């Protein structure tokens, strides 16, 4: 084996190891953003494998894929990053409580996990990590309402500043939204 053969196989081994680590992060990653950057890395590693293969075998068959790779990962990251849910301290607390309860259930069922006052014991006992986001969502109220309120404020200011074409429209909406939050 010449020096180039050694370099080829060592590089492919490194790339495969890096791809395996990225796949593990995609599987394990706590948030969708971790998965996005890991998928990005996997895509680049696939392009790198093709580049190394092109360099070793002296052909140019895959160069278009390498060009397209630069655009694909960018589009995916930008598209997904728009829709990330805010990680609130409340949901973190519920996840931590669910983990503590799961540990208590798996370890020893003798000691009862302490249940906060705000939660019903029947609902929180069955709460696991995969569904706790829904319980947190139901408990915290409707989160996207804040943005709607800001838009309604802007609409109301625009209406009050300009000629009020339909002054009755924004205020009932705000009343209903505030009634919903109360």
């Amino acid at each position, binding site marked *: 084996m010449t020096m*180039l053969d050694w*370099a080829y196989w060592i590089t492919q081994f*490194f790339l495969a190891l890096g791809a395996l680590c*990225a796949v593990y*992060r995609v599987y394990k990653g706590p948030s969708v953003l971790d998965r996005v*950057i890991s998928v990005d890395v996997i895509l680049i590693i696939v392009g790198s494998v093709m*580049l*190394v293969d092109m360099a*070793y075998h002296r052909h140019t068959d895959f160069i278009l894929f390498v060009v397209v790779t630069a655009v694909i990962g960018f589009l995916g990251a930008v598209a997904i990053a728009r829709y990330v849910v*805010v990680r609130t301290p409340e949901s973190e607390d519920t996840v931590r409580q669910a983990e503590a309860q799961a540990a208590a259930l798996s370890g020893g069922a003798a000691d009862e996990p302490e249940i906060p006052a705000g939660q019903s014991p029947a609902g929180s006992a069955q709460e696991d990590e995969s569904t706790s986001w829904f319980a947190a969502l139901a408990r915290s109220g409707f989160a996207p309402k804040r943005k709607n309120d800001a838009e309604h404020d802007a609409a109301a200011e625009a209406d009050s500043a300009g000629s009020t074409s339909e002054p009755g429209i924004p205020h009932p909406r705000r009343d209903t939204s505030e009634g919903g939050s109360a």
Partner: protein
Amino acid sequence: MTLDTFLDGTAAVFMVVGGLMSLAAGIGLLRFPDLHSRMHAATKPQVLGLLMLVLAAAIMWRSWAWVPIAILAWGLMLLTAPVSAHVVGRAGYRTKHMRADLLADDELAAAVDRLSRQRGIRREVKD
């Protein structure tokens, strides 16, 4: 030592360095504690690793015909990597996907705090 073996050796070194960048990205993704440090690791193969592999391929091809395409691939990656990193990092900061206790200095916190106290300034970008 002829020119061919010299070029082959150079390409081999570039190849291994490019592979090491991807390996570093994988280990960094595996070991680092929060989103922004993982992003720091994940950008290694995007710029330097891809540059090394593109150079290795261009050296091995021994022709100038495909070099513009290879430079285009690397340039596209160089242009789009900061954009995706900015968007992901901003979304991670705004949605609190980070360990604030690991930060040495949070310069963005002062700006966000000042903007959130002013009335009439939208904290979110208008759609």
